[in-house]
């Protein structure tokens, strides 16, 4: 029995790629921007809202371009829903900043520019990480958060 002393390391044959696949847009396009912080309300009941804009070509999302306004507690709501209903490890949100809400401390508290920017960036990171997770994409709460004008906290949780 003879065997070659040098192994055959030639590549396996493969199908040539379709040019429309090679040069077309990728099927994984998903971008979410969190921007345009606005302070809503007066006095002690003021809070900040952010614009959340999603652009995607993933078939699981009904709208390929959606824009909604959300506040920090809405993000908290989404995190809690996902932690309860899905098996994924949910990434952390930027901090609650309870200290900033204390009235006797100086400065602008929650509405300080640098703090808002830090929070905006953290929220953007959070929502992009979540929305790209294949298991989170099955949850109704995520779709409601991203694509419906307001969040119905009495909704029926479930899968899409």
């Amino acid at each position, binding site marked *: 029995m003879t065997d070659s002393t040098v192994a055959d*390391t030639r*590549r*396996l044959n493969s199908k040539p*790629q379709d040019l429309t*696949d090679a040069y077309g847009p990728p099927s994984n396009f*998903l971008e979410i921007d969190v921007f345009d912080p606005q302070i809503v309300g007066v006095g002690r009941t003021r809070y900040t809202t952010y614009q959340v804009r999603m652009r995607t070509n993933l078939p699981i999302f009904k709208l390929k371009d959606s824009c909604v306004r959300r506040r920090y507690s809405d993000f908290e709501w989404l995190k809690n829903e996902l932690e309860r209903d899905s098996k994924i490890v949910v990434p952390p949100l930027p901090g609650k900043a309870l200290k900033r809400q204390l009235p006797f401390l100086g400065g602008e508290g929650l509405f300080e520019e640098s703090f808002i920017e830090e929070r905006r960036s953290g929220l953007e990171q959070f929502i992009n*990480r979540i929305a790209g*997770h294949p298991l989170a994409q099955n949850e109704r709460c995520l779709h409601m958060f991203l694509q419906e004008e307001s969040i119905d906290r009495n909704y029926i949780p479930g899968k899409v």
Partner: protein
Amino acid sequence: MSFLGGLFGPVCEIDVLLNDAENRKTAELKTEDGKVEKHYLFYDGESVSGKVNLNVKQGGKRLEHQGIRIEFVGQIELFSDKSNTHEFVDLVKELALPGEITQNRSYDFEFMQVEKPYESYTGANVRLRYFLRVTIVRRLSDLVKEYELIVHQLATYPDVNNSIKMEVGIEDCLHIEFEYNKSKYHLKDVIVGKIYFLLVRIKIQHMELQLIKKEITGIGPSTATETETVAKYEIMDGAPVKGESIPIRLFLAGYDLTPTMRDVNKKFSVRFFLNLVLVDEEDRRYFKQQEIVLWRKAPEKIRKRNFHQRYESPEPRTQPVNAEQPEM
């Protein structure tokens, strides 16, 4: 060399010398603490013969004994239970009847065409070893000397060696087809394969191929699995799209591997797996593990040698040794 002492200093040195030491190859094996040791290499069916030399120390007492013997031992030792070694081979030759040793002596021994069913192996939780053990039996405590050997198990090219080809994925997210050119590879082989992307709806950052070794010891409820990543090899950097094909070429000779060992003496197994790992931009990992069989190919010289050599009668020797009447 060994320095075996009684209460009043060293009494006797026991040395083992193999007859064909000049022509015999050595092999390396890692010890339990990670050191690399070299010992003479044997294959299944080969005879093990040589001399036992006893070196009585000058000014030492006369060595009274109740017999001298040599054993060829094949042993499995589970590190979790070292007192209970299991000997699957134990051949004995009596070298001397009870008596006394007053001067240096030499005894010939031969174990003919010894069956060595398994390969020597040192792992995380188990060790399989072969050795010669010389015992000088005494009333209070025996003098024992162990002489380590290494055994390799050889195999021939498998008759059937199908490629592994499979389509896997996460529904609506990621579909790939992976292919490896064989299911059985020898230790110096090359894994040639490819990954074909059918659907990519996640943002992949890179893809790597891992070679994983699993050592499984124990049976039933008390099995312990020790997993080791022997090799990690990045095969793709960047985001692929549908229709792309990524080639794989992994040379096994660069890694410290043993053959696949299945259910050795019902005590342990050593198995190998290829683990294909895709990592997305958020560090989420998607993986598929696939078992491959590794086998040891006979070295060039052995294959060319007359295959019937192990069944030829041994060379006549100048000193005939008779097991029933050992030399005194």
